[in-house]
């Protein structure tokens, strides 16, 4: 076994040093009746060559030949090969959480850079070292808001990602906090009159997608103002972070906590995970922030270095009084995003964001030419909901041709008759104009 270096001679010598006759004897503290008396019932061991072909066969049963036109929280973008080659440096990917900062400066400085990128993109002052994903980051943001305001009600837009709302409901099931969902209007944006009516002096936070689940640029500044008038926090949640290269930063629109995922940078869609969740806050909320954070300091000779800091908020110190139970987060996925953002830089990000907007427009135009209008009138970035008649049939028909068309919105909004024929689809820089045109024509059938 290539991962087990012990020769029979090694084992003998080591047992002698331990003063036992057999390896079995080392397990004597496990009562006989609790031991497994048979081999595990799992498939027999295989060699590397068979392993590769077995996994290739499995992977081939996923149809990924064409770039997916489905987004809805996970976005297929071009990841430069440089990202993955750097990520594969074993010093990064086989390191643990940086508990010994002197020999983890690489991870720590990269986390500090990640935190800086997150603050630049969100326009807020502080970011933590990453969260599990966009959905749990959103739930943690709400928990943060309930602690910061000592209030127990959260008002959520129905245009926030439905999966994020489900996760939030799961997280709040045991806290007794109340979730009020406000509808969206014909423009696909949060209904501000309904929001105004729902927010009161018991409200801890208002949560808005940015862009929202329909790809629409939601009324974030107006929603933030409504939240603030009631003394609540404004939370924005972003699953397509490339949009933040074009749209004004949430922090500049009044948002107090910006969360979401940076999966679009440096990370594949990976069947939904892992992805680097992010959480950024205004400075005044730092004591309530969940998760790890890297900070700059100096070593004993005065050189700048980095450490994990403000750990008195965290579970390993505060135990049941911690701001969260989060421990391991999404470090390597955050590093991938950091490397990609470094490559993009100021000009590359602006370029990528405009290109995505342009592809979104090409998709809307191509669909319009094919006879499919938009479900919502509000402005969109690279994703939009189209009226295609029978959306489920379209998805099934395109699947038979190896194309992932999008998601029928009626799956997530079964009670809303407006969603009956709505198909949510995206186009990014990986979709060429020719492919987009072909897609629209194929939807037409």
């Amino acid at each position, binding site marked *: 076994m290539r991962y087990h270096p012990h020769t029979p001679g090694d084992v003998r010598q080591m047992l002698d040093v331990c003063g036992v006759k057999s390896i079995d004897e080392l397990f004597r503290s496990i009562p006989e009746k609790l031991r497994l008396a048979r081999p595990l019932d799992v498939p027999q061991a295989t060699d590397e060559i068979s392993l590769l072909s077995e996994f290739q066969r499995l992977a081939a049963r996923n149809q990924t030949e064409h770039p997916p036109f489905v987004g809805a929280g996970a976005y297929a973008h071009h990841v430069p090969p440089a990202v993955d080659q750097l990520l594969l440096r074993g010093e990064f990917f086989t390191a643990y959480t940086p508990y010994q900062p002197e020999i983890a400066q690489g991870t720590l400085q990269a986390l500090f850079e990640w935190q800086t990128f997150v603050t630049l993109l969100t326009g807020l002052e502080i970011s933590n070292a990453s969260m599990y994903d966009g959905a749990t980051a959103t739930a943690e943001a709400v928990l943060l808001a309930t602690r910061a305001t000592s209030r127990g009600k959260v008002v959520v837009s129905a245009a926030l990602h439905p*999966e994020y709302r489900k996760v939030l409901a799961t997280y709040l099931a045991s806290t007794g906090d109340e979730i009020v969902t406000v509808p969206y209007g014909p423009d696909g944006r949060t209904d501000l009159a309904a929001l105004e009516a729902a927010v009161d002096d018991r409200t801890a936070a208002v949560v808005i997608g940015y862009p929202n689940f329909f790809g629409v640029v939601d009324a974030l500044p107006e929603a933030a103002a409504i939240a603030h008038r009631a003394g609540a926090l404004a939370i924005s949640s972003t699953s397509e972070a490339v949009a933040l290269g074009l749209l*004004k930063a949430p922090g500049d629109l009044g948002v107090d906590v910006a969360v979401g995922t940076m999966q679009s940078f440096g990370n594949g869609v*990976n069947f939904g995970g892992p992805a680097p969740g992010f959480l950024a806050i205004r400075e005044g909320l730092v004591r309530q922030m969940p998760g790890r954070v890297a900070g700059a300091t100096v070593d004993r000779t005065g050189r700048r270095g980095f450490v994990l800091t403000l750990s008195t908020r965290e579970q390993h110190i505060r135990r*049941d009084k911690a701001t969260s139970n989060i421990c391991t987060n999404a*470090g390597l996925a955050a590093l991938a995003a950091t*490397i990609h953002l470094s490559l993009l830089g100021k000009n590359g990000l602006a370029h990528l964001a405009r290109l995505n907007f342009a592809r979104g427009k090409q998709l809307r135009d191509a669909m319009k030419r094919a006879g499919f209008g938009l479900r919502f009138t509000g402005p969109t970035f690279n994703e939009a909901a189209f009226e295609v008649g029978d959306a489920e049939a379209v998805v099934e028909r395109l699947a038979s041709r190896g194309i992932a068309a999008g998601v029928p919105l009626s799956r997530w909004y079964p009670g809303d008759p407006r969603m009956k024929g709505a198909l949510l689809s995206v186009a990014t820089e990986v979709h060429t104009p020719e492919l987009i045109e072909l897609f629209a024509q194929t939807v037409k059938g």
Partner: protein
Amino acid sequence: MANPTGWKPSMEKGAEGGEAQEVGAMGATRGLAMEEALVFEQGSPGRVGVSLPPVPAGTNPAAEIPAAMLRPEIPGMPEMAELEVVRHFTRLSQWNWGIDTGFYPLGSCTMKYNPKSSEALARLPGFAGAHPLLPSSMSQGALELIWKLERALSEIAGFPATVMSPAAGAQGELAGLMMIRAYHVARGAPRRKVLIPDTAHGTNPASAALNGYSTVQLESGPDGRLHPETVAKAMDEDVAAIMITNPNTLGIFETHIAEIAAIVHARGGLVYGDGANFNAVLGVARPGDMGFDVMQYNLHKTFATPHGGGGPGSGPVGVAAALVPFMPLPVVVKDGESFRLVTDPRERPSTIGKLREFWGNMGMFVRAWALIRELGPDGLRRVAELAVLNANYVRARLKGHFNLPYATDTLHEVVFDDQLQKDDGVTTMDVAKRLIDHGTHPPTVYFPLVVHGAIMIEPTETESKETLDQFVGAMLAIAEQAKANPEALKSAPRKPIRARLDETRAARKPVLRWTPGMKVE
């Protein structure tokens, strides 16, 4: 800005000569580690590190999106060419210690070798490029892999079913406690308390608190074990569950586990297992057979998926039959010859709901399944055997040189402390920092909390006898130096690119992001 890291050439003086000899032939020597500024302190206006198709002429976001919602660019973003970025992250990597660099005996973290073939497999386009919302007809391979891994994990830990979605061990704990809560609610009331031994990980009480439970700490006995009398005394009808790590964080098997489980079950409580130390019993014993009702696996520990400097992890949760109805969604089921995700609560009306976006950390599933396939039943058992052998070998060799606070048998890890070094003024922290100069990552220190100045060593099965001998040699040299020249230990580490860092300063004057002109002094 010319020298933002604060490094000066004079700092290298005196770093050579006798020092290299002092740590011996296998110790760390100072290689060419390059000073490296932040990306935000580098580059030059106009540079870019990506190649993208042009933005089509006439693209005008302002024609559709209100101008007040747009920004032309983000000030402060770096502007670097590809090579600058490549060198930057290559240099940062060289400041890091990884399993690929050397021994990493972090107790309770199970830093075993992460197979390279798993990286190749996880990068197959069919896995990495599969969108989570592909129709199930287009994602049968991914679903089949999840289903197979779920079946294997359930068998390995002895549970009828396993929840695959949790993003990490702590989220697995959260999921387990949510299911326990739902189970009690279905029987009338959630109950209010969770019992947690004093050896537990901090995530245990934090996860309990997130579920609205208050925690009752149980003292372990003088042998490092939890005793049935202690549990019986604390147990009542208001206790929802007990959370036990077995073997515990001292590396000691909780011999009384079956009796403890019976006591808890008799009063209607459930038994939660923290699977952080599952490596110790793989193929030897199964938590599901010991009375545990639920346990989280840490695929990034036991099943060798990379830790990545702090994640991503993956924390599937095995559950007993009584908890199956409450499992969070999705679950993957096999219908005839095809696989599908159950996501609709109408199919599982008692589900606690959804824990995270989509289905789980697929990238980790691929790697974990690859390891299980390559090891097979005998290889899996061999993991525990060699992990326990390695830990006991280190224990036997260090005993007498470092104090062993518990004489009880240990399995995959062993906890020493600094009692024998204390009189010379040398602490666990000094030992840890000096180990770095010897070319090894320090063990987990100051945990578990029941041992003052704990040094918690977990070698894992993938380390050779030579590596263990080097580590032992370093520890013995440090024990010697603690007697002969304790002051020298205080200035350790001297070899890495940075000396001991001022953590107090970091917390008192937090600098958590780069800002233009940033200075840290």
